[in-house]
């Protein structure tokens, strides 16, 4: 019987290999090794290391280990090119990016095949997903370059961007980083991952072919040391990193005090929530598109299935059947669903984690995989939240399944993670789906879908998944800077608080005690000490000397006030207008207080009046600084919602003790955040006077908490606190560095600035920039159609 008759019996698919001859020829031409791409040309290969095809372990190329000197040369070339590149009209940069997009399309299959050989991902994915998205990203950002001046008035590029990207989507991550950087007028030094450097080098050739000016895009290959040399280079103005949370933390610490812009896109352990009224088959396919996409090596993969108990058994059954039909094998075969794990090191890591889980007693269901650097699709059931498999990012095709009882239960389980990158919610009930999308702490939420990407929407995480967005207007903003004001005379450290009794105090009718303000209540400091607050002629009062326990209490109170973020902008505006009204009624009292610190009558009057106006301005913004509906794919609504960051620590500058506090607290609370304020250490009494105004203005307890005392010590406690989501520090340079260092722990967003730099009385003291800092964008994807 001939072969066709044989096949008719089994109806197997047979081999369907993608032709890789062109790519193999290209690799052969580069047999001597690849150099770096610096200043428009390739350097001679040096200190090369092998790049392998994970599907068969064969060496496919040799690339150079970037040295400090290479990085130096690349940064120098980028610096030299930057001024001219930024000075080009937007239209000229747009044409360059458009050309890149066109050339990527013209070399689409070449890039797809090369990506698959280098990374191990199935050709279907590189061909149908990665490379089309790369082209789409360059097109989209060609558009931003064109309209940049109109859409982002006053914004400037950072300068030289140092970018380090991972191996899971090598060329796509390059596009996500390079396209917005170039559109904004930055130049780039990029290091691709050491496992997967080849498409970046191919893109360098394509950039050369497309006529990108030399020095605008520089590619330096190498390992982590090369990456560290780039991110740490003093000539780099902005650092963008995608990769592990662990390395993100190292970079955060490395660039402390440098003033470099930073965006981090880190790990995830994203929930995949299936409600009882979901289309279960659709959800099963969603799991395939989530965790069995790119071998599960996806930072936003839905790696924790949470399924309603009512449908858990049926869902598990359907999922297991679907898992059995997945084909694991040769990535170049067109019928392959799951390709090779990127490197044996990663395979060992996945295997090790799953074995640890097995030892914990979970139940493991697996498909099949050939020998070699492959791992079968894996479903883990009977897994408790404490299991290593439920908490660690595995970065492999391994998904856990946990039943839940109620929507509340689902949200609690979903948020029971240090990460906050993405979430997938499956329900045919729009009320339920949007409610849960709002409650899940994640930068991207897919309703009845998973892993959908488009250049027009922002992508990025909450919490330890990093900060900053890529894609959309919010992603563009991450590559633009609004130059920070500089202090003529930097702020000096305040004199240490003196907690011994003051020599004299001004007489008052009845003695008044300033207290801390925590959870809507006046509180005595845990320390039991007070310190003298001085005017020009000695002490004018006593302020409580707060300590770390007071900060702890204030943060807890702030978390308890989470309902504030759920209120309407209108409601928040009402409270804030009322606050301004009550402050105005007591303006004279506040002027007197400021005068007691040594301010002139005019200055005191101006500060109070400015504070009242500022409160009005942010009250006005409460219901106006809203999100957008992004234009992405057809039959999708992509909502970009501005959400409060959460609990923000605010460390106020020394000068302008009333206005400084108002300028920081108001944008934060107007957007629904709750704050813990450390007021001017020197003159905290203007702040403690304020809590009486808060109390008369219906401000809910816990929304603004005030802890007076030694600024740097309190700032450090806030910075180290794992339950503080962001920290704004306006003080000394040394204090700023300390805050940035300590904030690396939970990767909270920081905003540090010299306390004396900004003229709080001018327009510098308020604006949309403050509101942007006070919000994070959650992109919610809602496909529709019946």
């Amino acid at each position, binding site marked *: 019987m001939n072969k066709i008759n044989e096949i*008719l019996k089994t109806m197997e698919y047979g081999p369907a290999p993608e032709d890789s001859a062109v790519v193999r020829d290209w690799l052969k031409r580069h047999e001597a090794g690849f150099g770096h791409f610096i200043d428009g040309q390739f350097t001679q290969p040096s200190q090369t290391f092998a790049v392998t095809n994970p599907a068969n372990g064969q060496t496919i190329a040799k690339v150079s280990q970037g040295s400090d000197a290479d990085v130096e040369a690349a940064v120098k070339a980028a610096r030299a090119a930057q001024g001219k590149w930024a000075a080009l009209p937007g239209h000229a940069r747009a044409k360059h990016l458009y050309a890149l997009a066109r050339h990527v399309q013209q070399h689409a299959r070449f890039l797809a095949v090369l990506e698959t050989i280098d990374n191990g991902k199935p050709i279907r994915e590189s061909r149908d997903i990665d490379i089309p998205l790369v082209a789409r990203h360059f097109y989209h950002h060609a558009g931003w370059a064109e309209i940049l001046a109109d859409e982002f008035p006053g914004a400037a590029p950072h300068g030289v961007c140092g970018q380090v990207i991972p191996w899971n989507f090598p060329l796509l991550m390059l596009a996500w980083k390079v396209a917005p950087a170039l559109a904004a007028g930055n130049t780039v030094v990029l290091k691709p991952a050491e496992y997967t450097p080849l498409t970046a080098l191919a893109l360098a050739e394509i950039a050369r072919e497309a006529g990108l000016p030399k020095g605008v895009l520089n590619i330096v290959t190498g390992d982590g040391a090369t990456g560290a040399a780039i991110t740490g280079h003093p000539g780099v103005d902005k650092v963008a990193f995608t990769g592990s949370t662990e390395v993100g933390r190292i970079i955060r610490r490395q660039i402390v005090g440098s003033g470099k812009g930073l965006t981090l896109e880190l790990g995830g352990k994203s929930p995949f929530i299936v409600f009882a009224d979901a289309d279960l*088959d659709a959800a099963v396919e969603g799991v395939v598109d989530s965790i069995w996409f790119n071998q599960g090596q996806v930072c936003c993969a839905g790696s924790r299935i949470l399924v309603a108990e009512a449908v858990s058994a049926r869902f598990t059954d359907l999922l297991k059947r679907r898992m059995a039909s997945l084909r694991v094998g040769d990535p170049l075969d067109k019928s392959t669903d799951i390709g090779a794990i990127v490197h044996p090191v990663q395979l060992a890591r996945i295997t090790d984690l799953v074995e640890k889980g097995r030892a914990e007693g979970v139940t493991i269901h697996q498909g099949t995989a050939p020998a070699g650097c492959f791992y079968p699709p894996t479903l883990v059931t009977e897994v408790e939240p404490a299991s290593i498999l439920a908490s660690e990012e595995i970065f492999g095709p391994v998904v856990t399944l946990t039943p839940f009882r109620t929507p509340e239960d689902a949200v609690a389980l979903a948020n029971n993670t240090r990460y906050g990158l993405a979430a997938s919610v499956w329900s045919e009930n729009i009320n339920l789906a949007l409610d849960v999308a709002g409650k899940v702490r994640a930068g991207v939420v897919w309703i009845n879908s998973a892993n959908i990407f488009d250049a027009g929407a922002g992508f990025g995480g909450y919490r330890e998944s990093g900060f900053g967005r890529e894609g959309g207007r919010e992603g563009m903003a991450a590559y633009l800077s609004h130059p920070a004001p500089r202090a003529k005379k930097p702020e000096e450290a305040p004199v240490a608080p003196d907690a011994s009794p003051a020599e004299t105090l001004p007489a008052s009718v009845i003695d008044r005690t300033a207290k801390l303000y925590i959870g809507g209540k006046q509180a005595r400091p845990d320390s039991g000490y007070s310190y003298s607050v001085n005017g020009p002629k000695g002490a004018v009062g006593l302020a409580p000397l707060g300590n770390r326990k007071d900060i702890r209490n204030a943060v807890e109170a702030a978390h308890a006030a989470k309902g504030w973020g759920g209120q309407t902008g209108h409601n928040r505006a009402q409270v804030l207008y009322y606050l301004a009204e009550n402050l105005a009624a007591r303006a004279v009292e506040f002027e007197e207080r400021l005068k007691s610190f040594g301010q002139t009558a005019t200055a005191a009057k101006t500060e109070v009046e400015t504070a009242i106006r500022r409160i009005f301005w942010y009250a006005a913004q409460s219901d106006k600084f809203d999100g957008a509906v992004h234009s992405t794919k057809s039959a999708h609504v992509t909502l970009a919602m501005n959400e409060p960051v959460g609990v923000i620590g605010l460390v106020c500058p020394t000068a302008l003790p009333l206005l400084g506090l108002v300028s920081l607290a108001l944008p934060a609370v107007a957007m629904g955040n709750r704050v813990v304020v450390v007021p001017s250490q020197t003159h905290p009494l203007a702040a403690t006077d304020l809590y009486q105004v808060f109390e008369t203005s219906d401000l809910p307890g816990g929304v603004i908490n005030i802890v007076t005392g030694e600024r740097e010590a309190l700032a450090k406690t806030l910075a180290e606190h794992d339950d503080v989501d962001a920290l704004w520090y306006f003080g000394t340079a040394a204090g700023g560095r300390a805050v940035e260092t300590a904030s690396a722990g939970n990767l909270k967003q920081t905003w540090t600035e010299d306390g004396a730099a900004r003229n709080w009385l001018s327009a510098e003291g308020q604006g949309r920039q403050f509101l942007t800092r006070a919000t994070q964008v959650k992109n919610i994807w809602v496909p529709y159609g019946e």
Partner: protein
Amino acid sequence: MTADSAAGGASSPGLSPLANDHRNPGMPLDVAMFEGHAVNRSAAERRAASLGARRSVKKDYQAAWLINAIRCIDLTTLAGDDTADRVRRLCAKARQPLASHIVEGLGIAELRLTTGAVCVYPTMVGHAAKALQGSGIPVASVATGFPAGLMPLNLRLEEIRYAVAEGADEIDIVITREHVLTGNWSALYDEVAAMREACGPAHLKAILATGDLQTLRNVYAASMVSMQAGADFIKTSTGKEGVNATLPVSLVMVRALRDYLDATGHRIGFKPAGGMKSAKDALNWQFLMNEEMGRDWLEPHLFRLGASSMLGDIERQLEHHVTGRYSSASHLALA
């Protein structure tokens, strides 16, 4: 007429048994099996779109998959200008769907390849049965006031009995769309059950006219009611609706028959019909069946492609496989 003889054309050694093990006896109407069953259209569309991209067959494998598609084709003519000669020509093509030089080139002479069935109007059944005598190819007849079905029930049942008496082995009935659109499930159930009874030994394929039903939830519900009422096959379309067979609709129907199988143990066949013209379509629908249901649903007793011009495209592709040259329809026999 036995279940065996109704099951299809080619009967060569080596291929899976062609007969369905036993016919779907149906079950009492159970609305809980479909009411509130969620079907998410955009998800179905995504899955349907990725099916063709996730699977590929090349060279001999492609040839085999195309040959298998021929085994499953209900070669169809349902036109107002059908004549006895037209039907005879169609039957000749069903008996010999590939030119002999292609059969030889493929080395499949011993397969005695035919299409799965020939599908005609009731008045053409006699001509078809005569033309197909001895071939083992079943005759399928549309009935029940095809394509709209808006005739009194007694006449529709009579039409079924007429077609069976003329020699039809399979009856492709149309459901009353109104019953679906108004949610009158018991009326739909009773109607299909009565039709099944009228079919006697002939197998019943229930045409849902999914283009008229519009929503995928309706498609799922109508599929389930038809199966509960005893349909042997569920079929997408008459070919006369504005939208005929699509992959997303097919996906939903296939999942319905899988759910019915899970619940009852009875295996139901699936027949997409209308709008499928290319060899690529033939592959995509087979990928759908194989991925969602497995190997058994690549056999004509559980899968049919209702098509007319598709066969011509398949034949051209297979000629190319044999000769290495791109083919011209004018060199191959018309259906």
